[in-house]
C-alpha cells in the first residue's frame, strides 16, 4: 500500500518536472498548447470529481468555468490596475458563491432531472452573458491585457509565453493536487458513498444535502479558477466560455480520458487538445471526427484511455504473475 503511494508520488513529481522542462525543448506554439492543456486538465479534473467520483452527471459545468472567465475579463476591463493575484482570488470566491447558490437550489433533484436542470442554469447564465452587453461585451466578447506580477523585488513579465506557462503550471498544478488530496480526505470518501448508494448513506448518519453542496461548491470554484486562466491565456473572453459547447468539451475530454481514474482528465485534456489541433490543421470538420471517436469510445472503450491503460496493466500483471499466484493459492 505505502509502496504504491510512493510510486504514485514519484510519478507525479516526474510529470511535474517533465512539464517544467518542456519550455526549453519546444516552440512557442507548443508551449501555448501546453498551457491550454493544463487549464483544461484542471477543468476536467473538477468535472470528474462530479461525474466519476460523485456520480452526478451535470450538463452545466461551463457556467462555473464561464463565471470564472468573465470575472477575470470584467475585472481587467472595468477595474484598472487589478493585480494578478486579485483576479485569481476573486474568480475563486465568486464561482464558489455561484456554486453554492445553484447547488442549494438543486439539492433535491437527482439523475436525469439534475442533468437537465444544470443545463437550464447554464443556459440562463449564457443568456445573461449574451444580453448584458455593457458589462460582458455580449457576442463581441472582452479583450484584455495580462497584468504583470510584481513580487516586490522582481516583476514577472506575463506577456512572455514561457513565463505565463510557468505561472499556470504552478498555480493549476497546485489546484489539481488540492483536488487529488480532496479525493483522499474524509469528504472525498463521502463523495464515493454518494455515487454508490445515496439512500443508504442517510441511514448511517450522513446528510446527503450537505455532502452534495460541498462537492458542488468545491468543483465549481476550481472550475472557475480554470476559467480565469482561460481568459488570461487567450487574452479574450466571449460567450463561448459559458456556452453549452464548453460543457460538451469538458464532458468529451473527461470521458475520453476516463472517469474511473483521477488522472483520466489529465490524459483526456492532452489527447483532446492535441487531437483538435491536429485535426483542425487538416480539416475544418473536426467535430465530425470528435463525434466519431466519441461513439467508438462509448461502444468499445467506455473506461476511456485511462481505462485502457489500467486494464492493459492488469493484463500484463496477470500474464507474468499467474503461475506464481497459483502456487500461493494452493
Amino acid at each position, binding site marked *: 500500500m505505502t509502496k504504491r503511494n510512493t510510486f504514485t508520488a514519484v510519478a507525479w513529481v516526474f510529470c511535474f518536472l517533465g512539464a517544467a522542462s518542456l519550455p526549453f525543448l519546444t516552440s512557442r506554439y507548443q508551449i501555448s498548447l501546453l498551457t491550454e492543456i493544463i487549464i483544461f486538465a484542471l477543468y476536467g479534473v473538477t468535472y470528474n470529481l462530479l461525474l466519476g467520483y460523485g456520480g452526478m452527471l451535470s450538463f452545466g459545468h461551463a457556467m462555473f468555468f464561464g463565471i470564472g472567465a468573465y470575472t477575470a475579463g470584467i475585472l481587467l476591463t472595468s477595474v484598472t490596475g487589478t493585480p494578478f493575484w486579485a483576479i485569481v482570488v476573486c474568480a475563486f470566491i465568486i464561482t464558489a458563491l455561484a456554486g453554492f447558490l445553484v447547488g442549494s437550489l438543486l439539492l433535491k433533484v437527482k439523475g*436525469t432531472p439534475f442533468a437537465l436542470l444544470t443545463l437550464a*442554469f447554464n*443556459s440562463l447564465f449564457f443568456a445573461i452573458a449574451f444580453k448584458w452587453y455593457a458589462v460582458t461585451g455580449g457576442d463581441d466578447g472582452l479583450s484584455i491585457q495580462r497584468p504583470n506580477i510584481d513580487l516586490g523585488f522582481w516583476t514577472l513579465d506575463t506577456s512572455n509565453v514561457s513565463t505565463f506557462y510557468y505561472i499556470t503550471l504552478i498555480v493549476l498544478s497546485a489546484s489539481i493536487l488540492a483536488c487529488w488530496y480532496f479525493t483522499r480526505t474524509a469528504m472525498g470518501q463521502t463523495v464515493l458513498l454518494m455515487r454508490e448508494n445515496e439512500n443508504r448513506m442517510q441511514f448511517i448518519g450522513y446528510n446527503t444535502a450537505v455532502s452534495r453542496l460541498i462537492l458542488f461548491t468545491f468543483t465549481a470554484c476550481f472550475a472557475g479558477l480554470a476559467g480565469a486562466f482561460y481568459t488570461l491565456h487567450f487574452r479574450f473572453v466571449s460567450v463561448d466560455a459559458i456556452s453549452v459547447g464548453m460543457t460538451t468539451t469538458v*464532458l468529451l475530454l473527461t470521458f475520453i480520458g476516463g472517469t474511473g481514474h483521477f488522472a483520466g482528465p489529465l490524459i483526456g485534456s492532452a489527447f483532446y487538445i492535441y487531437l483538435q489541433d491536429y485535426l483542425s490543421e487538416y480539416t475544418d470538420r473536426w467535430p465530425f471526427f470528435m463525434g466519431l471517436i*466519441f461513439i467508438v469510445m462509448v461502444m468499445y472503450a467506455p473506461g476511456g484511455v485511462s481505462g485502457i491503460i489500467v486494464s492493459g496493466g492488469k493484463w500484463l500483471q496477470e500474464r507474468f504473475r499467474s503461475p506464481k499466484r497459483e502456487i500461493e493459492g494452493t
Partner: protein
Amino acid sequence: MEEVFVFFLHGLAYAGLLFLVSSGLTLVFGMMDVLNFAHASFYMLGAYFSYMVLSMTGHLWLSMLICPVMLFVIGALVERFLLRKVHSGGHVHELLLTFGLAYILGESVKWIWGNYPLSITIGGFLSESINLFGVTYPVYRLFVLLSSICVGIAMALILYKTRLGIIIRAAVNDRTMVNALGINVPLVFMGVFGFGAALSGLGGVIAGPFLTTSPSMADDILITAFVVIVVGGMGSLLGTVVASLLIGELQSFGVLLFPKFSMALIFLLMAVVLIVKPSGLFGVEQS
C-alpha cells in the same frame, strides 16, 4: 388587442411544432429512459430531406410522406446497431452515444448542404394569408397547428386504443415481464425509437418553410424540447401537450413583452417547476 391575438396564434403554431418534436422525445424517453441528444438532429435531417424532395418534386405532401419514412429507417438503424449495444453500460453511456451522434449528424449536414441557411418556399394556398376574426394571418402557421393536432390525436389513439399501444405501455412498465409473455420487446423498442425519429423528422419537414433550414436548427430546438418534456413530466403525453402550449405561448409573449429575456424565461419556468415538483407537471412521483 389584435396584436395579442396574433401573438397568441404565433404561440399556438410554435407550440404545435414543439409538440411534434418533443412528443417523439417523450416517447423514447418514457420507454428507454434515454435522453436522446440526437433527437433534434433527426428534426434537422427531416428539414434537409424535405428540401431535397421539394426541390425535386415541389409537393409538400410528398415530403411529408417520404421524409418520416426515411427517418424511421435511420432511427431504427441507430437503435439496432448503436444504442442497443451500449444499453448494459447504463444511461450515461446511452446519453453520451447520442451526444456523439448529434455531433456527427450536425457536421454531416454542414458538409453536404453547406453551413448557411437554406430557404424553402412553397407555393399555393399554404403560402397565402387568410382573414381570421378580423386579423390577417398566414395559412401556413395554422397548417402547422392543424398537423400537430392530427399527430397528437393519432398518437393518443395508438397508445391508448390499440393492442400495439398496450404492448408499448406494458413494455415501459415491465420490460422483462412483457418479454416473458412472448413479445419481442427489442423489436418494439426499435420500432418506437424509429417512430420517435420519424415524428421528429415530420416536425422538421413542417418547420422547413416556417423557420429557416440551417445546421443550427437542431441546437435551437433541442434544449427547448428538453424543457418541454421536463416541465410536462417525463414520459407523459398529456404533460407534453400542456407544456408545449405553455412554452410556446411563453416564448411568443416573451418576445412581445421582454424581448431581452425571452430565452431566460423558459429556463426560469423549468427551474421553478423542477424545484417545486421534480417530476414535472404530470410526471409520476418516484419514491
